[in-house]
């Protein structure tokens, strides 16, 4: 084989080369290292091809959970002795953009139910979108985690568990003529919807829900099991410390979830409030040196793609200087 004329993609599709990369043996190892020593100018091509093969041999797809494996096996056991034709119930889904909910819950180390779940996590300063098996799109904000029950598609309920903040665009799902509900569990309450868009944020010792359109049911997890039905524009606030519930109405709920477009819409937000947001989003400590600065308010839209841009934007709006060293952000007054 004349490997000298090979391009990286030729190496990557060569069976002998692939066997070296994926399952090296003393023979293949000796062959390729000798070949490289004789042809040092091909080292880059070889390494590129090696990376290509390694990448090509990865699979980000999902393994079935043990529950799924057992469930399919049960179906096989039941089916193998009976030759009955199984009529499948099909799921029809319609995408409906409807409501928006914003929910703020405490950000603590708590656990919901255990069981087989898939989870998605984001680091500080990172957001990502996750497409669930039913077509529901979830935008996960920084430092958040979403867990998804493993038995979707069969059971009539769709359930997820959230810590942090996420915006949900829930697909409307019907099974045998019945709307299938979608439930977001948080420490404080369950949000039940049937096809809607909403934002859930579990930070600070409270739960806040804002609904823009459509209908949402809330059920508190406390002893009262109180149920609340929300209408568009309603904001529900549940403080875990005080165990108190407030309901008010917002003329425009969209600023509550502008984070998902990498910006914050600030309406008379105090610097102290912004400091909390920065801490939760980027995982840094924020110190405001001068107490009088804490009540300075900001109006407008600031970028949040990265913290540097955000801090620059704040410096240009307010008479402040911001220093950022490692995980510490310090805000000082700026003499005019």
């Amino acid at each position, binding site marked *: 084989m004349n490997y000298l004329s090979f391009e990286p993609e030729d190496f*990557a599709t060569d069976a002998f080369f692939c066997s070296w990369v994926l399952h090296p043996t003393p023979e293949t190892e000796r062959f390729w290292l000798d070949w490289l020593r004789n042809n040092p100018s091909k*080292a880059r091509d070889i390494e590129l091809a090696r990376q290509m093969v390694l990448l090509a041999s*990865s699979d980000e*797809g999902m393994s079935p959970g043990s529950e799924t*494996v057992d469930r399919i096996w049960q179906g*096989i056991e039941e089916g193998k002795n009976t030759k009955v034709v199984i009529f499948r119930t099909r799921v029809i889904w319609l995408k409906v953009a409807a409501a928006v909910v914003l929910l703020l819950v405490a950000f603590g180390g708590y656990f919901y139910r255990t069981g087989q779940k898939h989870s998605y996590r984001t680091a500080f300063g990172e957001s990502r979108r996750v497409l669930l098996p039913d077509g529901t799109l979830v935008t996960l904000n920084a430092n958040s985690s979403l867990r998804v029950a493993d038995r979707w598609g069969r059971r009539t309920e769709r359930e997820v568990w959230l810590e942090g903040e996420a915006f949900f665009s829930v697909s409307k799902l019907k099974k045998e003529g019945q709307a299938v509900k979608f439930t977001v569990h948080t420490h404080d309450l369950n949000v039940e919807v049937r096809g809607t868009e909403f934002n859930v944020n579990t930070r600070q010792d409270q739960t806040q829900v804002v609904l823009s359109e459509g209908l949402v049911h809330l059920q508190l997890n406390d002893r009262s099991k109180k149920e609340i039905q929300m209408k568009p524009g309603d904001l529900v606030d549940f403080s875990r410390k005080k165990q108190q519930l407030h309901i008010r109405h917002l003329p425009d709920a969209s600023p509550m979830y502008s984070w998902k477009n990498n910006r914050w819409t600030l309406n008379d937000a105090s610097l102290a409030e912004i400091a909390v947001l920065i801490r939760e989003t980027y995982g840094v400590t924020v110190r405001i040196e001068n107490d009088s600065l804490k009540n300075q308010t900001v109006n407008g839209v600031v970028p949040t793609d990265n913290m540097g841009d955000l801090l620059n934007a704040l410096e240009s709006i307010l008479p402040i200087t911001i220093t950022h060293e490692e995980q510490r952000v310090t805000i000082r007054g700026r003499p005019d």
Partner: protein
Amino acid sequence: MNDSDLWRSFRSGDETAFSMLYKSHIDMLYRYGHKLTVDTQLVEDSIQDMFIELWNSRKRLSDTDSIKYYLFRVLRRKITQHPLNRNVAGAGAEISAFEHRFFSVSTESELIDTESEQGRSRALGRALTQLPPRQQEVVNLRYYHEFNHQQIAEIMNISLQSVHNTLQKSMKGLRELLSGYSEIILTALVLLIFH
């Protein structure tokens, strides 16, 4: 027990062999099924039906020395020819959500974040999903499941030549996607080899 023996035991009606057959292949079948459709229920139903039919027709089956290859061929046919399937990769149908299936799609800001090690490996991990679905399938069968070209041609019901061509095209595509990161990665290896 090798594939031929396991297959023979199963064909003779050995329930334990049948259960082993299922357990040792369910993970790869499930993964492969999801490369063909976004419909989880369809994947599960097809796998279930396939095993039921295998059991019921076991006496009529011929020998095989690669069970995996046999099962992949049957499963692909089941899924792609299913009357309710609207999201088949191989049938040339529109594959809307296919590429996003169970991959987290990151926001723009993350895509640009190639500075950090983490950002780089995330970007690399996504490179595969940027290939056209058909290329993804061939690449997956060749490099992840390690089928040979002939087997891939049989599984996908395409010509040997088009397996070659698709692989070549996929690797060219990957090469381009990788070129952005290659400098850093390559330096490391070159050092490794010549020391």
